[in-house]
Each structure stands twice: as C-alpha cells, then as structure tokens.
C-alpha cells in the first residue's frame, strides 16, 4: 500500500475509523486530503458522522417498574440441576412470563384418550389416601415450573403427587396403563408449593410400568417427565 493510491473502500474504512476515534496522525492527514479533494467522500463522511451522532444521542429509557418483580417472582424456587425432566425450546417462556399472577387452584379432569375411567374411579381421585409409599420422584427446578412430582402407591393403587409452583397455571397430561387424564390448574400459587395428589384410574394394586407426564402452559407443552414403577412393585 506504499505507493498505490487508496481505494474508495479504504477511504471509507478511514471514515469509520475516524468516527470510532481510531485514526493515527498519518491516516488523519490522508483522509483530510481526500475529503478536500473528493466531494463524494466528503458527503459520505458527513452523513456517517451525523448518523452516528444521532445514534449515540438516543437515550435509554427506564425499565418498566414491574420488570424486576416479574423476574424475581418467576425464578425457580430451587436451582435443582436438571434430572430426567426435559424443558423444550424457550418459546414457552413468553406465554409463561406474560401470564398473570396467582389464583386459587382449580382442578378439572377430562379423559383425553384411551378407555375412560368410570365415574366411580374418577370420583374422589383428588383426595389423599393414608400412608402412601413413594416409588419414584422427579425434581423440577430449571424451568418454568419448580417443585417435584412423585409417584406413590397407597391402598387404592398408584397415584401421582404434585408439589409445584409456577408463574402461570400448569395443566398436566398423565398417561399410564392406556389411560390419559388431564389435570388443569396446578402450580398457580407462585413460590408456595401446593401438594395435589391424583390417583391413576385403572391402576389397581398391581399397576406397573411407566407414567408419562406432559406439562402444559397456555396450551403449549413446556416439558415432559417419566415416573417409573420399580420392578418389585
């Protein structure tokens, strides 16, 4: 570059470097000469300087007052490392974070597929039964829903216990033994985890295998978990 003239592109680089305050003395002189001699370079230089000055002058705005509160409320209750629970891609977060705050938990059951439980099976499935024995537990702590889900057995058969906290209502699909049931409105108590138990229809006393859980927020899947009945059971 010693003896050849600088190209337009190289002059343009000098203009940018000048705006960024990175020109040395020689480059500054070179650019000044070109600016004097070439109206086109002079025009570009003036446009860019004006543009950058206006960009630099754009003022920050204050963050919304509720931002901090929303962030702190949405933090997981515990920072439990991920276990067998899988949180999918981050799109769920928008729905979860926008969602409003907390209300009383309402549970609604509906049969989604598979042979539906009889009314006798459904009735009373929310009621806790005495002396349950925990068979498997999955901790949730690195996603939109904090807490844990346990598979237990009591005198009536298999059941799932939810102790969840979330910033928005959580619906859960529970698939086991050919049934899929849906539980709506879990986890709406913010940082206070509320225990809710659900008896699995049709599991009887000899139920075995796996229980697949699908967690939904605002109709979108936010994660899946698998609970396993130990072989000896």
């Amino acid at each position, binding site marked *: 570059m010693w003896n050849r003239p600088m190209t337009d592109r190289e002059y343009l680089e000098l203009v940018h470097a000048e705006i960024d305050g990175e020109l040395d003395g020689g480059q500054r002189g070179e650019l000044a000469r070109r600016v004097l001699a070439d109206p086109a370079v002079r025009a570009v230089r003036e446009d860019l300087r004006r543009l950058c000055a206006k960009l630099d002058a754009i003022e920050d*705005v204050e963050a919304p007052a509720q*931002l*901090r509160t929303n962030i*702190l409320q949405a*933090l997981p209750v515990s920072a439990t490392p991920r276990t067998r629970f899988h949180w999918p891609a981050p799109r769920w977060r928008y729905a979860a974070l926008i969602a409003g705050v907390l209300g009383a938990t309402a549970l609604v059951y509906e049969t989604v597929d598979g042979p539906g439980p009889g009314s006798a099976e459904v009735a009373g499935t929310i009621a806790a039964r005495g002396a349950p024995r925990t068979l498997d537990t999955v901790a949730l702590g690195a996603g939109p829903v904090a807490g844990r889900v346990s598979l237990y057995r009591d005198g009536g058969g298999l059941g799932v216990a939810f102790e969840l906290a979330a910033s928005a209502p959580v619906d859960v699909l529970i698939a086991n033994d050919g049934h899929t049931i849906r539980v709506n409105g879990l986890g709406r108590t913010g940082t206070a985890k509320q225990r809710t138990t659900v008896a699995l229809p049709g599991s009887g006393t000899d139920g075995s295998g796996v229980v697949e859980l699908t967690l939904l927020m605002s109709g979108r899947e936010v994660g899946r978990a698998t609970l396993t009945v130990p072989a000896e059971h």
Partner: protein
Amino acid sequence: MREDDDPALVRRCRDGERSAFEQLVVRYQKPVYNAALRMLHDPQDAMDVAQTTFLKAFEHLADYDPSFKFYSWIYRIAVNESLNALGARKSLEAINGEEPDEAPGPDTQVEGEQTGRAIEDALMRITPELRSVVVLRHLMQLSYRDMSDILGLPEKTVKSRLHSARMALRQDLLRCGTVR
C-alpha cells in the same frame, strides 16, 4: 455501574443467595431492557425478552465463566434472546435493498425528535444481525472487544459488520430523506 463486584455477586448467587441475584437484576435490568427494546422496537416484547434473559442467566449461572465480564455474558443472552424473538416474528421485514414502507419524502423531513424516531425506524429495517452491532456500539457504548465477546465474533468481523450496518442505515435514511 460497579461491575467490578459482579463476580462476588455471582458467587453468592451460586451459593444460593437469591438477594445477590436481585442485585444483579437491579444493576442490569435497564441496559438489558434497552438492548431488547432497540432490537425489537416493542416494549412488551422487550420486557418478555428481558425477563427471559435474567431467568436464563439464573438457570445457567453454573455455566458462567468468570474470566468474562458478567455484563458481556448477560448482554450476549439478551442479544440472542432478541434474535430468537425476532425469528419468531413472521411479519418482520428484513430490508436491506428494499423500499421501506410508508417512507416519508424529503419534503416531510423534520429535525430533532422526529429525526431520532426516523433513525430508530430505520434500525428496524436493517437485518437483525446488523442491528445488533449498532445497538451494542452506539446505544450501549461498548468497545469492539466487548462486542466481540458478546457476539462470539472476531473483532475484525464485528467492525466490518458495523461498517456495513452504518452504510445500510445511511442508504435507508437517504431514501427517506432523513439524512442531508
């Protein structure tokens, strides 16, 4: 901003002290929100992205490398989340080389506040990748070194991208009659 004690706050967060994370939120909510706002040009989307940014930071504090500045790390999350949000916006018009919609003619050119608004609008008409370097450089006043860390690109590439962004903005504003 006292970023020199960020590592101590992060350490306390990792030890389970939630109030330390709250201090980081207080310290960085404004720049993170502003970065998202300039990237997205929508206050609600910017708020969502800012929340997601801090939640991700909290979840992944164990992955944070203290040899990098904390703000570089969290701005990186913010920029990536903003790009993700833009990717989800099907209606986004990426513009280089296209006529901007409803561009004001030279006769409607105004100074001051409206010129600033025209520049912000023009920002939304360049590609998100170009926009991110403008936001980091001119609105967040970051060095090329910091920008390189945040974007995961060599400094030379960052510079080249910023130069392209400035030229794209100039062309756009010339078409709108806002420059000159």
